[in-house]
């Protein structure tokens, strides 16, 4: 495992940086938010991302993908994170995409992955049911036999990323008979499925999903608890990469302000107390960069054991969620009054950091899991 970018990876990172910077950075999210845009992201840009091949980066070429890995996708997500891009790359390619890619169903794989790669389908996974993250195994939604080999899904899911826009929702439910968890590929417009958009603080698209007897064919089941764990860990690593981008951008923005803003006749960045705080943030961000790179590469190792993947995912999420929160708190503080205004971009990072921390479990949750994995 080499913690450095190769030439291809550098190209991907640079072009990802260019794509999102060209689109106007945070300004774009602000406009979508202020307009109360129902889609919540740019479908035109989504088509462009498909054209660049990024929506299928980690999928094999025969399924419309590029045949690269989580490592490369994380580079794109990091750059997306810098501008707080709300395009649902994480939900579609890494959450739903991983479920389809690594799942049991060839049919589902060949049906959906090419369409995801082509940008035709927005997809997501609906797994969370409670306000605070706990074990995914505590799932209360059920899959009930509906005759003819079909099952009907009942329950409610919350915090479903891009849930109101997704054409494909992979729903986690417990088989009523066996008690086993299952992941079921459900079309977003299935009868009995209601998506209620949630206006969250970060303005990223998200929804509550109610399943009132949604009937699917039995081959809609693409995997069980083990698949879910892997899917969440891969997506967690992607989110950590996005967080790395977010904290880097908020930090850069703050450094710029420290250099420019003058008080008492000098730039405030010349005050040693602020310098030392900035230097410590820098160190922590650099450590985040190391763990994100290592985690992504681990996810790409063929046959990586689930426990090893879980451990690096927890490492990456524990560090990035905490550091992101600390960086944005300091960023607002160092910006002073202007950082508190809605007019300034830095507040968007503050809001996003907290949502990131609540998405796949915060630092404390992942430290607890690390200890459980290590047997103490």
């Amino acid at each position, binding site marked *: 495992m080499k913690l450095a970018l190769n030439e291809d990876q550098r190209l991907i990172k640079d072009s990802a940086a260019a794509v999102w910077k060209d689109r106007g950075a945070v300004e774009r999210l602000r406009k979508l938010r202020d307009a109360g845009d129902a889609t919540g992201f740019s479908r035109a840009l989504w088509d462009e991302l498909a054209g660049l091949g990024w929506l299928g980066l980690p999928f094999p070429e025969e399924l419309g993908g590029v045949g690269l890995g989580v490592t490369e996708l994380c580079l794109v997500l990091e750059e997306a994170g810098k501008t707080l891009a709300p395009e649902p790359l994480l939900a579609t390619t890494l959450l739903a995409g991983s479920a389809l890619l690594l799942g049991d169903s060839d049919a589902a794989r060949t049906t959906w992955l090419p369409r995801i790669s082509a940008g035709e389908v927005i997809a997501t996974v609906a797994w969370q049911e409670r306000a605070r993250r706990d074990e995914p195994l505590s799932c209360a939604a059920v899959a009930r036999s509906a005759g003819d080999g079909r099952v009907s899904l009942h329950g409610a899911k919350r*915090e479903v990323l891009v849930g109101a826009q997704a054409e494909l929702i992979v729903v986690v439910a417990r088989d009523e008979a066996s008690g086993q968890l299952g992941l079921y590929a459900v079309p977003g417009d299935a009868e009995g499925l209601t998506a209620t958009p949630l206006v969250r603080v970060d303005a990223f698209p998200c929804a509550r999903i109610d399943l009132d007897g949604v009937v699917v064919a039995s081959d809609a089941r693409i995997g069980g608890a083990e698949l879910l764990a892997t899917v969440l860990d891969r997506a967690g690593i992607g989110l950590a990469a996005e967080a790395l981008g977010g904290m880097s951008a908020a930090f850069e923005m703050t450094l710029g302000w420290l250099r420019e803003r003058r008080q008492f006749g000098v730039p405030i960045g010349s005050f040693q107390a602020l310098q030392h705080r900035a230097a410590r943030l820098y160190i922590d961000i650099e450590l985040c960069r190391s763990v994100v790179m290592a985690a992504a590469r681990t996810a790409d190792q063929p046959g990586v054991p689930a426990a090893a993947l879980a451990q690096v995912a927890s490492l990456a999420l524990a560090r990035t969620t905490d550091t992101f929160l600390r960086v944005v708190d300091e960023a607002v503080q160092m910006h002073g009054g202007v950082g508190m205004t809605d007019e300034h971009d830095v507040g968007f990072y*503050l*809001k996003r950091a907290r949502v990131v921390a609540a998405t796949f479990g915060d630092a404390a949750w992942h430290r607890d899991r690390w200890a459980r994995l290590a047997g103490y």
Partner: protein
Amino acid sequence: MSDLDGFRAEVRAWLEEHAPISLRGRPGDIFHGHWGGRRGGFESPDHERWLRLMVERGWTAPTWPTEYGGGGLSRAQDAVLQSELRRLRLPPPLIGFGLVMIGPTLLEYGTEAQKREHLPPIIRGEIRWCQGYSEPGSGSDLASLQMRAEKNGDGYVLNGQKIWTSYADESDWIFCLVRTDPAAKKQSGISFVLVDMDQPGVTTRPIKLISGASPFCEVFFDDVKALARDVVGGENNGWTVAKALLRHERTMVGEVFARSVMGAEAELLGLAREALGPAEGTLADPLLRDRIVQSAMDERAFMLTIQRIQDAAKTGQPPGTESSILKVYGTELNQRRRELAVTLAGADGLGWEGESYASGHLALTRDWLRSRGNTIEGGTSEIQLNIIAKHVLGLPDGGAR
């Protein structure tokens, strides 16, 4: 002692007889009540009656001299009055920056003419005031302010901008720091001037915060007029007046935070039980439990420190720069609490708006966001730490302020 007892009896009887029944049991505070002013309506006829009654006795400004319409009470008498108001849980008849900021400043620094002109309308709730200190380019470095006041006949012409002016869009007059001598260095060319906002050239614009709407405004001055007689403390001598007022403001902010942090343990515990269950016994999450205890202990230690400072003041020990301690610690304490609250609530603490969220949960999000400003407004934590380092600890000046 028996004088005070007599006064108490008199106040109690008067309140029992006159205070509107509908207002009893509805206490306010210095930020919750009737703000007065030309544009200020009343919540109810009883609120208006309550103001008129109290104005008549001078009890909207109980300790101010009777000659300006105040109550002329001693501090001890005022304490009795306040405790009797609390007994019936009555709201203050009038609140606002006229009473707590510009009024006391005029009493200390104003000329007799200024007091006669400006204090009575404040006491009667006719004029609402706001404060014009900060400018976009001068935050912590207040003395670098740029707003100009140029001499013009018997007055000044004002041009420039103020920011972070609370309730500017609902106020009638503004007290401003302006630069009257551009050649003088920083503090020495500044004047403290009173400006009628009801004139052309004054524009206010509310500021939207990361937490949503706010009372803060920007105020723009475009050839606005001020009278020479409305300069307080003398031309180019405004810095002295401003500093006195700032100290006063910090203490007030400290008190507000003292109130805001109370009850952290119960609130956080409630959120924790809601999120973690079970309803009784040891909390399921030992790390969050530990953070709740820390919040509770921090709050207790903070409240005890406020009490200690007050008790020390009573024994005649001169008050020092305790306001900086309270400001730094109280604001950070509140931030930690708000952060812990959203953490406990998990996804329930991430809502921005909409019917999918309980209003209490939406408030968690907004309160957390708003709390980030606590360590910035009213003098940043950094400035307070500078003050402590230099004026309490006697550390040498390094040029950084």
